[in-house]
């Protein structure tokens, strides 16, 4: 299996370097498992969206890496609210099922961590073929 081209990986992963800021935030509060939980959920949902878009025939865009990053921040939002004072509430499941996932944190992280490389691989396969010279295609 071939890996996606380096520039493609940079486009996908580069924006997520911004997640270092919330990483430090969670580390300060001893919440790294929560960081993994919500970041992976954002990334997994983002990759599913990008894959569906890719499989529908849309070409790769420069801003694709912003999708998993934005969804990761969206999934984390209740934790930022929490530190300000308000507790988690059921309605906060609108943030990519934040509350329901917190409920089963260790199991949810395990599932998300298994799904993530599968989706990255699938995304790579879908986009790699777009980048390959015509002669190399099946």
């Amino acid at each position: 299996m071939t890996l996606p081209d380096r520039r493609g990986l940079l486009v996908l992963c580069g924006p997520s370097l911004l997640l270092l800021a919330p990483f430090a935030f969670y580390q300060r509060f001893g919440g790294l498992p929560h960081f993994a939980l919500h970041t992976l959920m954002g990334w997994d949902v983002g990759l599913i969206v990008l894959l569906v878009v890719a499989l529908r025939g849309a070409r790769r865009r420069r801003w694709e890496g912003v999708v998993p990053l934005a969804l990761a921040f969206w999934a984390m939002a209740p934790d930022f609210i929490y530190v300000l004072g308000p507790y988690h509430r059921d309605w906060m499941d609108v943030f990519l099922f934040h509350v329901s996932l917190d409920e089963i944190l260790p199991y949810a992280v395990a599932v998300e961590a298994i799904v993530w490389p599968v989706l990255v691989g699938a995304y790579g396969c879908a986009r790699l073929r777009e980048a390959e010279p015509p002669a190399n295609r099946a």
Partner: protein
Amino acid sequence: MASPPIGSGEPWRRSGPVPRVLTATQRRLLLLVVAAAALALAATVGVGWRLERNEHSPLVRVGEPAPDFTLTASDGGSVTLRDQRGHPLLLAFLPSVQCGVCQQRLRALREALPRLTEQGVTLYVISTDEPEVQRTVARSLHLGFPLLAENVIVDRHPAGRAYGVFHEPGAQQGPVDAAALVLIDAGGSVRALDNRPAGELSAADLVRFVADGLANSGAAR
């Protein structure tokens, strides 16, 4: 200007119609992967969703024997309730030691501690946090009482469930215990209970709650 050829290494710069580069079999295979991933995530969310909404036990009542529990303490040891008989206990349940309102209550408890000690009351705070996190907060707030950690992974909320403050109906706050005060007398019975939603609570309120509970037979508020 002519578009660069496909495979120029910068496919996002191309213009014109989108090339169909995947064979039908490859597309089907990738769709299957996407569907399986989405299904796995949906199933995980579903399990959490169901637990969140269906798992609760009745609130402990005044006059009942206080349910026993053993929890890890922030000082590294463990605390078993039945070993604490012989003196009154105040259990202060908190969703976390990190949220703003919780820390306000921790400060109020710290302020009330000398008065509680005068009354012979031992104070334990129970929260849904790792002991390490509790230690950090205890140090930063200069708390002089032990914090007990609910085990949320193996035995989910043993104390919160036993007292009915985990997933308390009407006080859903996510996978954490609701804020509650439980006063237990020297004989191990619940003497007073305060399970109002967490809000501003002063040291004077706490001292009054304990004094009233020990003086009277106690009544749920």
